[in-house]
């Protein structure tokens, strides 16, 4: 599990338009710069926003990756819900569905 590097990649994409440009034409070239598992690479490539969410990618990063991959806001929220159904509870980090609080 190299969640740190999945998040580092998204952080870098948020900051650097040049990396975005390379990512769009040569995704594998960008991915090989990061220590990632096959599952992580798959989730980034597809993109499987729900799986990235379940892996534990911080929501403050993931929402921008979803936007970069052309997810509308409601689609992005739905993708996380689908991810939970398909892959189970969030595995790491703070952005799990906690319950608690009022609605």
């Amino acid at each position: 599990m190299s969640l740190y590097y999945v998040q580092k990649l998204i952080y870098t994409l948020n900051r650097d338009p040049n990396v975005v440009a390379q990512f769009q034409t040569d995704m594998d070239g960008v991915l090989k710069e990061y220590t990632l598992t096959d599952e992580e690479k798959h989730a980034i490539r597809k993109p499987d926003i729900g799986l990235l969410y379940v892996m534990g990618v911080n929501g403050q990063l993931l929402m921008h990756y979803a936007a970069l991959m052309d997810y509308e806001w409601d689609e992005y929220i739905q993708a996380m819900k689908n991810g939970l159904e398909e892959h189970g509870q969030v595995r790491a980090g703070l952005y799990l569905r906690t319950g608690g609080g009022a609605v």
Partner: protein
Amino acid sequence: MSLVFAGVCSHAPGITGRADRAEPDLKDGLYASFDRMRDAIKEAGAETLVVVAAEHFANFFMDNMPAYCIGMADDYQGPIEDEEWLGIKRRTIPGNPDLSHRLIKDIMQDVDVSYAQEWKFDHGIMVPLHFLTPDNDMDIIPVNINCQGPPLTPLHRTWAFGKALRRAIDAAPEKIALVGTGGVSHWPATPDSGKINEPWDQSFLEKWAANDKDAMLAYTDEECYAEGGQGAFEIRTFIAIAAACEGNPGDVWFYAPIPIYAVGCTVGAMAGS
């Protein structure tokens, strides 16, 4: 005394990015309160606005995460987010490196604050600036408190930071406005986005408005996370403002849960300037 205004506000990206999906009355009330804050800052004669924010991995990451950081650049860029997604056009925001330098040096007497000569503002600063300096005509000094990547700074250190910031501001001849920006309860960027714990928010805001230091510092991260969600760690920004205005009451001008904005939207001011 060179602090001329102190206040707090929300910064959720939905406030501008999903502006028209809220109930019109609520949106109008919130926007009017931001306008009121802009007018108050102007009437106070502020020359510089110090924004105490809680950014979201735009500049600071887990490779080198400062608990506290202050900008010291000639200018800043923002928003880092897609302009259309956030509903705010990209611009270059003027800084004041000389004043930054003096503030940082003074704060360092008490708190080991980091500094940055490069800083891309995310929604955490750009949403407030969208309302408070729409003409981009005021120097901005960004301050960040890490509220995202634990371990997070303890609340009593946030209090010490707020006090040190105030002392540094008072030592400067410039007229300075100070705005803290964060959420109260929210579960942003999760499947529960839109969930808001109104009673918990009201209880926190009462303590903030009373400037009840002991009650505010009694919160734990565990309680914030359980009752107020991932976004509640950002109460640090409100607490820093209370510390800067220690002993003085606050006034919550606006509070309303607005689910499509994904936060209990808050605008308030605090006496003591």
